[in-house]
């Protein structure tokens, strides 16, 4: 049975049957338009950082919601990621009699790749969805229009503080995840391999060089930007009432997560080139 879909004026219309070519054309156009609109929104969110009005209070609120709010899940997950890493590699290290290198391997894996990527994916799941649903609800209840009608730019008031907050807090969250991950790794290394504190921590702290830290802490800046702008874009483009909000939320998490992984790959290539 054909379902009715709302049009832009809110009326319910019967979907027409169209040739496949036209459907594919429209889908490609729609995807390209989305990329273009998302890029415009992202660029505007950067430009707005440098001119008034500034919304510091909103920025602090968002840093609290996104940063402090994500802390428990980051700590819990970080701990177990470190613990699992050692659990999986301990047997291999023991086989070659190189258990002393456990700290090196876990530290480098966490700082360069797992810490930034897993933290970003977790924040994407938590915050991109939160941002999309919050802004989407504001759109469908005309709160965004009300804001514009009162002379306030929703881009400056809603998008820029979320973008800046996510970009600022994500590297900090990654730092926390890395540290807690190492604690989890040490805990398992001590229990399974019998490594002492100095044995583990000397290697874990000395293994990563400055370049590794640059790699590990620069990626979250880009990931944070992706999470916030995708969440805001999906939220502000909601159509079709509460159902639309649900779709936007799901789609924000999926797009942000995939973008993080794909961008992560290219960033790795780029960073290995500049800071090998």
């Amino acid at each position, binding site marked *: 049975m054909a379902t009715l879909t709302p*049009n*832009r*004026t*809110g*009326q319910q*219309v019967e979907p027409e049957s169209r040739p496949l070519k036209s459907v594919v054309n429209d889908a490609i156009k729609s995807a390209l338009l989305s990329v273009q609109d998302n890029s415009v929104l992202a660029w505007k969110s950067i430009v707005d950082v440098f001119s008034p*009005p500034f919304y510091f209070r909103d920025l602090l609120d968002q840093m609290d919601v996104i940063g402090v709010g994500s802390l428990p899940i980051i700590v819990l997950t970080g701990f177990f990621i470190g613990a699992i890493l050692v659990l999986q590699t301990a047997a291999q290290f023991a086989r070659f009699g190189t258990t002393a290198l456990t700290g090196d391997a876990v530290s480098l894996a966490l700082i360069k790749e797992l810490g930034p990527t897993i933290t970003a994916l977790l924040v994407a799941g938590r915050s991109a969805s939160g941002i999309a649903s919050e802004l989407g609800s*504001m759109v469908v*209840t*005309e*709160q965004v*229009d*009300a*804001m*514009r*009608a*009162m*002379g*306030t*730019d929703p881009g400056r008031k809603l998008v820029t503080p979320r973008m800046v907050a996510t970009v600022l807090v994500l590297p900090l969250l990654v730092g926390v995840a890395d540290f807690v991950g190492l604690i989890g790794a040490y805990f398992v290394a001590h229990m399974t391999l019998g490594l002492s504190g100095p044995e583990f921590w000397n290697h874990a702290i000395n293994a990563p060089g400055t370049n590794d830290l640059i790699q590990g802490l620069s990626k979250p800046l880009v990931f944070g930007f992706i999470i916030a702008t995708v969440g805001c874009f999906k939220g502000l483009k909601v159509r079709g009432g509460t159902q639309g909000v649900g779709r936007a939320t799901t789609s924000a998490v999926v797009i942000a997560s995939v973008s993080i992984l794909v961008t992560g790959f290219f960033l790795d290539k780029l960073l290995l080139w500049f800071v090998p």
Partner: protein
Amino acid sequence: MTIAADTARPAIIFDNVRLGFEEGDVLRGISFSVAPRETAVLLGETGTGKTLVLKLAAGLIRPDSGRIEVLGRDLGAMTERDLLDFRREIGFVFQEGALFDSLTVEENVAFRLREEHVDEDEIAARVHESLEFVEMAEAIAKLPGELSGGMRRRVSIARALVSRPSIVLYDSPTAGLDPVTSQKIITLILRLRDLQGVTALMATHRLQDAFALANFRFDPKLCRVVRAAENGARGGPKTGFFVLREGRIYFEGDQHQIRDTQDAYLARFLE
């Protein structure tokens, strides 16, 4: 209260305004004007584009073609930044209130003033004054979720008038409300018009609201609504009726003309 400086010039002018979406044209050449202190009532069935006309008048959306002039300014020639400044001079009451649900009533009403960095003492005074006007002062600390539909509309009116606009746009302000609450909202609109001389553009599908605006006025001496003299007579407030149908202005006139019409569609609409 800042009334449009040039009282002879219409406060709102729509000249052959067209607007369409993927599904087709919604507005097909709308032309009308609203004089300062006049109340224009946009009537029409659901989906005829009444809300779009209001959003066009506020510069929230841009027409495909045609010219819109509000308070002497051509909206088509303005940038989005200019439009943001311009919108501070008008009030917009949305259909469901569109209150910010995470902010209290006080924060909602004070929103625009805080954006303009008005002194906090003045904000407190003006918020109190606006909430007193809509008889909602006791709800100042409540969240919108704790209010009834009618209360939300009243707070929305308070929010629209806190910056003392010369034009207020009402989008179906009584839709979905019970008769008693609707009456309260209409009384508020009459008070705003008759005490503060606000120009109003109101979209509604409720004819009784339109006739109430045309036939009654708020008497400041008696502090109540009384039957008005002839519509617009002796310099009193004038109420214009505009009926939208199929993207065009199908009827334009006063309450007598619409009531005495022989047109079959209007007669059916009036029933």
